[in-house]
């Protein structure tokens, strides 16, 4: 029951999903639609579970006085305040004027954007310290990167605008993107598609069981 029943459920549900792609009859489409609605709701519960897990782990860390525990108080306090306000404010919690919307606009949004903005600095640092051209292949990679970087922005046109059009940086950049880059990306797409199809079938047929992690 503990392992066999979930494997059976996965197989039946998965086969139904694949069948619904080919069979438009309501005897297939209605149960398939219901199962998809189930998945939507269960995944949403999963996010609530994830939040509860964050609360549990950090509360434990505070009680054990792990390194950095004062910051975890900030984490838990902000989590609880956000949840309580959001639940109390109801369906309109993201409407203008709501405290939850303020939290989203002035705390969540700027901090998330800034976290990603840090990457610009690290990419420059990594370009200097780690990007090493030691082989012919790496040379091809570097040349393509340099042409695309400069050709995609206005400065590429400025630097090579005086040359004949076929050898201007933006033209070469366009050719690289539409021909050799396109070919390699398509090969990766096709290969990945075959891999996903194979893995999907392995999961549905119960050959791949890693998602049933843990002991019986």
């Amino acid at each position, binding site marked *: 029951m*503990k392992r066999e029943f*979930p494997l059976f*459920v*996965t*197989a039946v*549900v*998965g086969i*139904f*999903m694949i069948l619904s792609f080919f069979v438009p009859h309501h005897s297939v489409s*209605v149960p398939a639609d*219901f*199962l998809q609605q189930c998945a939507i*709701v*269960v995944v949403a*519960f*999963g996010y609530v*579970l994830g*939040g509860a897990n964050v609360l549990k782990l950090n509360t434990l860390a505070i009680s054990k006085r792990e390194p*950095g525990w004062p910051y975890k108080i*900030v*984490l838990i306090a902000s*989590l609880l305040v*956000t949840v309580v306000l*959001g*639940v109390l404010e109801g369906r309109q919690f993201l409407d203008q004027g709501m405290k939850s919307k303020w939290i989203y606009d*002035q*705390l969540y*949004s*700027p*901090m998330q*954007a*800034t976290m990603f*903005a840090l990457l610009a*600095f690290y*990419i420059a640092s990594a370009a200097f310290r780690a990007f090493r051209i030691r082989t*012919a292949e790496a040379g*091809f990679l570097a040349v*393509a*990167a340099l*042409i*695309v*970087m400069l050709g*995609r922005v206005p400065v590429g046109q400025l630097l090579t605008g005086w040359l004949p059009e076929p050898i201007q940086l933006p033209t070469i950049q366009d050719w690289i*993107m539409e021909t*050799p*880059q396109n*070919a*390699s*990306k*398509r*090969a990766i*797409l*096709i*290969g990945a*598609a075959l891999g*996903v*199809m194979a893995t*999907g079938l392995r999961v*549905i047929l119960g050959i791949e069981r890693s*998602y049933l992690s843990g002991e019986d």
Partner: protein
Amino acid sequence: MNLTTDLSIWVAALLTLCIFSFLYKDNPFYKFAEHLFVGVSAGYYIVLNFWTVIVPNMWDPLMKSFGGHGVSDRAGMVAVELGDYRLFMLIPGLLGLLLFTRFFGKIGWMSRWSLAVIIGVYAGIKTTGFAQGDFVAQVQGSLQPLWTGELGSSINAIVFTVGLLTSLLFFFYSREHTGALGVASRLGVFFLMVGFGAGYGYTVMSRVSLLIGRLQFLLQDWLGIG
């Protein structure tokens, strides 16, 4: 310079600077902002999924079904019509609650039933999606004439086809890459490297854009410059 008097913008700007301070070195301001962000994010995701999925997609239809109503005009607590499942929405509710059994060691295995439904649905959807959208359509798109009537585009078509085939052959691991296969896969490597280099160039553009966005916020919204 026209410094804003809006306290909210000041809060956003100061938190932005707290995170940027990490570039100098790790410090309490950054740690504070980081933990605040994690807490707010986790809380926001809980509330968002509650009000946008659990309530409208499960709770509301269930409450309506207890009154004998649903999406269609037909009366009754039970329905099996496209988009109208009434009392059957108890099933995803129960499956969702079963996920929480993971917190209780002895009955944690029951959460696998919920996972089984999720895995089954997405395995099926992704298999057909990748098969149609990424495999069939892409192979179809590759079957193009090598001679187009014009020299330039014909050369491009030949280069494209050679690049595609040799790149695909690089990923064929059922045979050792020697002889003709070795030559083809080596050529494929060069095409793949060009692809990765182009990807690197676009990645640089993406990351720099994010920095530009934050600086535009600090300059225009906070400091009132430009």
